[in-house]
């Protein structure tokens, strides 16, 4: 296996050829915020939180889909990036209904944690207060689309790991939303195996276990990476 050496934030590191910048950074203890990335799933570069600067390239690159190259000089934390990430996060909070105080995921929420990590305290943009509907037709799970950030982790986990492809995206732009089956109530979708992978994949309180109350829902965050590693690397234990 060939190895590449590169510099991230002035630190010389080595990475496996074919690794993404995100992977290389993670292996070396360098934090890059992410939302749509989930280990074990394909990467799509949609949330734009992991944007980094690479010397000699005049545009920002998403770390989750950019492969490392020999001699690459990466900066993950410049003032510009920090400001952009914060603003990106503000846009996310303005576009949905993210009211932590009444959310099942409060204090066990990747969106919340990432917002704290990028230093977002308030949004300067006007709230959209969308009314995208709540679907509680499934016996075990529920989806509150107003808390959805369209990371499509549920779509990918259901398609790539479970193989059921219950979820997909309908409409476009601001109107885009996650739908189940052929835009049916979740409970009526025969393809759903009730495996709960989407619940574990969801970074916000959008998809939750039914019956969990505010701030008490615990997810098994390591489950999806474990399943992927079991399948790909035959690592059967966690």
């Amino acid at each position: 296996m060939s190895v590449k050496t590169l510099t991230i934030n002035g630190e010389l590191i080595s990475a496996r050829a074919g690794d993404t910048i995100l992977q290389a950074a993670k292996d070396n203890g360098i934090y890059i915020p992410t939302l749509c990335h989930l280990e074990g799933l394909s990467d799509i570069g949609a949330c734009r939180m992991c944007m980094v600067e690479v010397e000699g390239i005049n545009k920002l690159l998403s770390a989750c889909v950019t492969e490392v190259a020999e001699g690459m000089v990466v900066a993950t934390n410049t003032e510009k990036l920090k400001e952009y990430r914060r603003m990106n996060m503000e846009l996310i909070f303005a576009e949905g209904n993210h009211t932590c105080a009444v959310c099942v995921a409060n204090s066990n929420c990747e969106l919340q944690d990432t917002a704290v990590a990028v230093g977002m305290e308030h949004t300067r943009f006007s709230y959209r207060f969308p009314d995208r509907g709540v679907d509680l037709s499934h016996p075990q799970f529920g989806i509150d689309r107003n808390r959805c950030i369209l990371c499509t982790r549920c779509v990918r986990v259901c398609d790539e790991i479970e193989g059921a492809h219950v979820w997909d995206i309908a409409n476009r732009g601001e109107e885009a939303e996650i739908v189940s089956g052929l835009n049916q109530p979740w409970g009526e979708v025969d393809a759903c195996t009730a495996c709960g992978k989407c619940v574990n994949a969801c970074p916000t309180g959008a998809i939750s276990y039914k019956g969990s109350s505010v701030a008490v829902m615990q997810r098994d965050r390591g489950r999806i990476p474990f399943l992927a590693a079991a399948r790909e690397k035959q690592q059967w234990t966690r």
Partner: protein
Amino acid sequence: MELKELINIAEQQRNNAKKIRIRCCSAAGCISSDSPAVKKGLENAVKAAGLEDSIEVASVGCMKFCGRGPLVQIDPIGTIYEQVKPEDTASIVAALNDQEAEVTATVGDENHPFFSHQKTIVLENSGHIDPQKIEEYIAAGGYQQLYRVIYEKTPEAVIDEITRSGLRGRGGAGYPTGLKWATVAKMDSQQKYVICNADEGDPGAFMDRAVLESDPHKVLEGMAIAAYAIGANAGYIYIRAEYPLAIDRLQKAIKQAKKLGILGSQIFDSAFDFKIEIRVGAGAYVCGEETALIASIEGKRGNPRPRPPYPAQSGLWGYPTLINNVESFANIAPIVREGAEWYSSIGTEKSKGTKVFALTGKVKNTGLIEVPMGTTLREIVYEMGGGIPDGGVVKAVQTGGPSGGCIPASEIDTPVDYENLRKLGTIVGSGGIIVIDNQTNMVDVAKFYMEFSEQESCGKCVPCRAGTVQMHELLTKIFDRKATLADLDKLEALCRMVKDMSLCGLGQTAPNPVLSTLRFFREEYLELIGDNQELRFNPTIVSKHLSGVSHR
């Protein structure tokens, strides 16, 4: 099919030509103003006068002066009639025999700068041949270049010719076409594809539609030459469903070419195969973005994906794919025919050849123009376009659609090419030129384009999906005179962020109309903001406010 047969068809077609040919425009613009009835009227009048042996009435493609349609032109004398009504047709035919006869239709000026300043390469056959008859295209020299390329040139020589011609992608970004071809050609793959991007969607742009409706074979020939050069055996034309006439004519053209052995298997009895299929878009603007277009052809949701890998490396179904715009392909056959030196002698130093523009907005003469790169906006707007109707004043010229910007009237002497427009914060784009007069508020213009981008965002990445919504809201607030300077700051910060952070070209260029109007027409924003104050405590504003208050 051999070259001899091709030339035979051409000769036969020319021999069958009648003494007089009345050309009647049958492109979408003129059809919508009743040109089929005009054609019918002309045919009836010819029949009634018993002149069927000497006069032919032909349906042809776009005759360019769309604003004055339906258009009818007489060969060989060249007289052009504008806004012809069915009841005018008898007098037009009568005048052909009798010089004294009075024609009730408006006689146009075929030497008007609108026509005389044009240099037609892409549109050389447009308005002259019947787009639905392959024989007419062949009679105009069509498909001979494809034959020559297959039998006389190596793929490398073809790519070299295109590279030396200096042709740059006509879809908007201006990437060197030859370089793109060479990249795909070098990819080691059993399977490659050629895609023609006909998903023209900028507001006010209709160049590609006109090319496809007027001369579909030219695009097919260009695609086939490209396929030969890069080693592809299959191609797709991705065209929007809103262009039914163009789709219909393309389908006919593909069928005709297949029948003659010019497309399909063993083209011209050589070992070269190339089949073309049409894919119809379902109305998403973002599907003009190449990765979204490819996803859409694959039957997936038309979402863009991050590049690299570029389609040249991994495109349709993961295979190397060449994707060019309609106009780029339409340039290929003429370049091969006349040579790279000829093509590169036209235009400016870095932007070669001609560009087709759709001239619209507040301008007297609207329609399709093809001019050499480097033609000034003044020439286009004042000489060809005839200036603004009712003596209005040009305030700005918008180019590049929602990805472009507005050029102020003070820069109207700018020669149009890729570099100059980029310097002015806009782009050549696909080729819409919209003239804006001084009755129009520039904030309103920016708001219009932002609303367009907001609605056409696919929703995949956050900056574009949520950013365009907020930018549109801020622009609306400014336009409604409810905004403060803080809102303007917010807008500018957001513009920069969305530009740098978005995933694809749609989001990356969505702020351009705002940035460009802020650059040249900032005072219009400030005027709308006036002395509105931020309500919450802001030390700088408060101190500014207090400095004007006398202490009692």
